């Protein structure tokens, strides 16, 4: 045994050097940046950050600003509808494809390609498709249904649903792919057992298969939700937040406050609220997934 032990700090030297970018990023950007923003949300920053404490002022203003409240409402509507629909559609598609059909690759390619597109592209193409003069409204009217009105992007009450259509078109392919992977991971013997028991296919899905896919559902949920909260590009491209402020969303509110309204304080407060929302979902999930690991075999 040697009398001097190598200094702990210099063990695995190369590995530590290699990990420097990760450490710097983690600490500086993620932790540091987040803390900075949250701290400055309690200040009176305008065009430039200013360390002038105003307590919860920014938050009070935030929650009494109509534009913000509309943003939150839109996010809630969009989020809920998107979540439900994208799961239902995605799962049904996956279940259909899992029936050992031919042309699986082709169908999957067609349903998934929107996911490869930028949100800007998605927003613009649907802006065009929903154009009342030339788009869906005109086509349906051309079929004889003269009074058909479908101009979500021009009527404030249902504008958010126009964005919803685009969002579902873009995102359901992802859910389908994840669900399909989950379905394929199911033990085939369980299917056989249910056939021997005489269970009809639809019942097997509801009572046996879906409960077995809980982990996949949870993972997909987290992914979809974190994506929904961040929605920005789609809105900017498809509606620009309009008509009026009817399709405003929190992410856009943050950007507009920070870089156009010269109101950093509001921007910080709004982004902190976004963080809180995400934390409310991610933290319980993380505890559920990883906190219980001590109790597993």
């Amino acid at each position, binding site marked *: 045994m040697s009398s001097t032990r190598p200094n702990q700090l210099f063990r695995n030297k190369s590995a530590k050097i290699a990990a420097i*970018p990760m450490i710097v990023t*983690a600490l500086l950007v993620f932790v540091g940046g987040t803390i900075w923003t949250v701290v400055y949300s309690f200040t009176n920053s305008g065009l430039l950050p200013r360390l002038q404490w105003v307590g919860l002022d920014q938050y009070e203003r935030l929650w009494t600003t109509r534009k913000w409240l509309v943003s939150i409402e839109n996010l809630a509507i969009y989020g809920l509808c998107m979540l439900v629909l994208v799961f239902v559609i995605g799962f049904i598609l996956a279940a259909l494809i899992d029936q050992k059909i031919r042309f699986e690759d082709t169908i999957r390619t067609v349903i998934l390609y929107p996911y490869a597109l930028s949100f800007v592209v998605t927003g*613009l193409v649907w802006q065009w498709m929903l154009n009342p003069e030339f788009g869906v409204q005109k086509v349906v009217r051309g079929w004889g249904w003269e009074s058909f009105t479908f101009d979500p992007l021009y009527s404030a009450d249902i504008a958010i649903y126009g964005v919803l259509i685009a969002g579902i078109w873009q995102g359901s392919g*992802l859910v389908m792919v994840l669900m399909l992977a989950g379905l394929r991971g199911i033990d085939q013997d369980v299917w056989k057992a249910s056939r021997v028991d005489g269970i009809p296919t639809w019942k097997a899905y509801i009572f046996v298969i879906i409960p077995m896919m809980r982990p996949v559902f949870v993972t997909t949920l987290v992914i979809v939700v974190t994506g929904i909260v961040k929605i920005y590009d789609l809105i900017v491209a498809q509606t620009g937040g309009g008509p009026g402020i009817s399709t405003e969303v929190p992410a856009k509110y943050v950007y507009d406050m920070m870089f156009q309204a010269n109101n950093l304080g509001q921007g910080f407060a709004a982004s902190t609220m976004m963080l809180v929302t995400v934390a409310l979902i991610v933290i319980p999930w993380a505890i559920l997934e990883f906190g219980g690991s001590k109790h597993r075999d």
Partner: protein
Amino acid sequence: MIDITSAPLTGPQGPKPRKSFSRRNIFLYGTLITIALFYALPLYVMFITSLKGMPEIRLGNVFSPPLEVTFQPWVKAWSEACTGLTCNGLSTGFWNSVQITIPSVVLSIIIASVNGYALSNWKFKGADAFFTILIFGAFIPYQVMLYPIVIMLREVGLYGSLGGLVLVHTVFGMPILTLLFRNYFTSLPEELFKAARVDGAGFWAIYAKVMVPMSLPIFTVAVILQVTGIWNDFLFGVVYTSPDNYPMTVSLNNIVNSTQGVKEYNVNMAATILTGLVPLSIYFVSGRLFVRGIAAGAVKG
């Protein structure tokens, strides 16, 4: 071997009669084909709109195919459309995107793969803690870190430049890519690593000579993931660059949404296609690898 002479069989035998057009099949394929058409529709509309002249567009609707095919909208979108003050079309944006994407992809993948390798084979104190922070960081909405990064970039003089954006993309690509590589390297047999160490190879040597050659598939997946994500980005592009350096997505949005006067729908659609061309091509070419990429990116922890 059993040899039983048997009388010819009567009654049901052989495969169960199945109608090709059974109710089940009609429902199945009918639904899928209908849905697939719905998904393909916008792409179709994009293309035919971009190939029509404006008069034809005003007369028809989005679904009618072009009577006279013209590529003029494409030319205009590429070189003449107005993005705000300048009217150089998408070409500047395209080259900006190229200059942003390539270094970002290369840099983020190198760093993340080395990181993932360090995490999977060379445990050191605190490594897992930092990694957990990184992963949680992936969930944080970008908006929360937007301004601090502006400040940091200003300090190093990179705010508004392409280099600054490259740095941003590298930073934000790290969590998912590191996870991807770490999981992959962990799945490689440990004996290879141990054998190399016994042979005297060090950290970097093992990385370059053992790990990388065995990881071609995962590198491809990482490239697909990054190119698609970075090329399609809008938020970072619009926050961290100045108008000369706008990526294609930002230029596109400007062309379509900030034009005053007559809207040239065909040019808009041509521009949209051009912007989507790169990631779409990658998607159609890579097929299953793309799927593997998003499935891998989705599996956290």
